[in-house]
């Protein structure tokens, strides 16, 4: 079994690289041959050169740092609030029932429409973006925490109670670890969404940040600049994702095959 895995893994990576290369080469040649308009599609080599230039000259850092700071703040605040509210509502049936319709209504609202109002409330600086990011992250984490705490194994809870756990100890030793699986499945998604949300916020009105950079490039019809911004964003999301994976693997090391289970829950 492991042998077939090994044998098929190496060629698969080759195939994957090949596919990507074909795509890029086709794109490059399509533009060079004049089949695709360079004005709208730029060229992979130009985009790569632009990305490299941005890092070499250092113009990207202020934008990247701003976007990452906003995303990190949205993420931290959103996760913190989501976990706490998720816990409280999962442990309090009355509150959960009372707030249920309002949570649904709020969550049903498309987040982007909040951007203008946040711009009015919090100004052009980072906090309007953070606010937008928080509204996205909060709900994802909240729903998952709620579910995680609700679906904790009754027998394990009873066992801990018989062993003398106080309410606090129960939360710390049973409910949080049990909810972690769900919380983690939400972290993967919410990190990506936090970045998207703050970039959208920047795009709509800001003075720095990757979203601002993209909107500036768009304003002067600099397609290469727009693509370069997209590439950098994708790279950042991937890197952060790897970090979360690492942390998850460590924190959920007690699970037999946690990766499959968690990754399956994209909602």
């Amino acid at each position: 079994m492991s042998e077939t895995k090994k044998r098929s893994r190496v060629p698969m990576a080759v195939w994957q690289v090949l596919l990507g290369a074909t795509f890029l080469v086709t794109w490059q040649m399509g533009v060079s041959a004049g089949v695709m308009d360079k004005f709208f599609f730029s060229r992979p080599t130009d985009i790569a050169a632009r990305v490299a230039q941005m890092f070499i000259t250092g113009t990207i850092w202020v934008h990247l740092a701003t976007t990452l700071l906003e995303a990190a703040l949205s993420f931290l605040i959103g996760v913190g609030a989501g976990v706490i509210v998720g816990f409280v509502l999962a442990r309090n049936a009355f509150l959960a029932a009372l707030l249920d319709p309002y949570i649904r209504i709020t969550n049903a609202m498309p987040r982007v429409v909040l951007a203008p109002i946040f711009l009015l409330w919090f100004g052009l600086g980072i906090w309007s973006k953070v606010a937008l990011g928080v509204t996205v992250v909060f709900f994802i984490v909240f729903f998952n925490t709620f579910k995680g705490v609700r679906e904790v194994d009754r027998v394990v809870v009873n066992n801990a109670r018989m062993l003398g756990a106080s309410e606090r100890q129960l939360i710390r030793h049973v409910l949080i670890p049990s909810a972690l699986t769900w919380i983690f499945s939400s972290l993967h998604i919410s990190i990506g969404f936090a970045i998207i949300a703050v970039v959208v916020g920047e795009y709509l009105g800001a003075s720095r940040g990757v979203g601002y950079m993209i909107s500036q490039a768009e304003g002067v019809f600099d397609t290469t600049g727009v693509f370069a911004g997209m590439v950098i964003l994708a790279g950042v999301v991937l890197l952060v994702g790897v970090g979360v994976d690492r942390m998850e693997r460590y924190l959920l090391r007690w699970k037999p095959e946690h990766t499959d289970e968690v990754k399956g829950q994209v909602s």
Partner: protein
Amino acid sequence: MSPPNGAAVRFTNITKSFPGYVAVQGINLDVQAGRFLSVVGPSGCGKSTLLNMAAGLMTPTEGTVEIFGEPLQGINRKAGYMFQQDALLPWKTVIDNILLGLVFQGVEPKLAEERARTWIHRVGLDGFADRYPHQLSGGMRKRVAMAQTWIVDPAIVFMDEPFGALDVHTRLRMESEILSLWAETNKTVMFVTHDLEEAIALSDEVVVLSAGPASRMVGRYEVGLERPRNLIDIKTNPRFVEIYGSIWRDLREEVLKSYERNEKA
């Protein structure tokens, strides 16, 4: 009418109903302190329900549970409970599972770990301290559960079909271990099983419940086999055969009744 003093657990007129279903009805039972008492009855008759009420995890619909003469309110703080299902914390290692009760009591971590190590040795899990439950066999998980329950030294121990899922060999070894553990202490044990042989082999006293719904106590039997017992040979002991025969006559009818009910349902 009133049973002698020294009951560790006393059920008085206990009835437990679930929506649309009466599980047990009119149970009067006292478990004398320091004794090993088994409850047997067909599957679904309410054995676990009875333990859950004695543990304070469920409240009776009617009647009272007293623990050492005090009415039980909330969780039974004098009791440990080995559950029928897997109840270990899957995110904690063997040693962390075992010392959990000590952590809850606020025992200093160093001391708790030391005591947990002696228990790991006692239940034969040397070398497995840092494994997670899913890396252990079913028998090993039961050993962890045993150590986890006994390390806090509860005066009463409830055990709910603890060895039901084990193979015959492992089961026999665990039963012997339970008996030697119990012999070292003066704990009261209330042991639930659907296996009459196991009940007689281990206990001082066997209580038979009738088939549900509205299960009642059918009989109560003094086992009277001397201790320490050799579980390997005990089944051929004439006294064992005799008591087995007399309990089985009562239990048999209950099992047949429960078959009939299941077929109708």
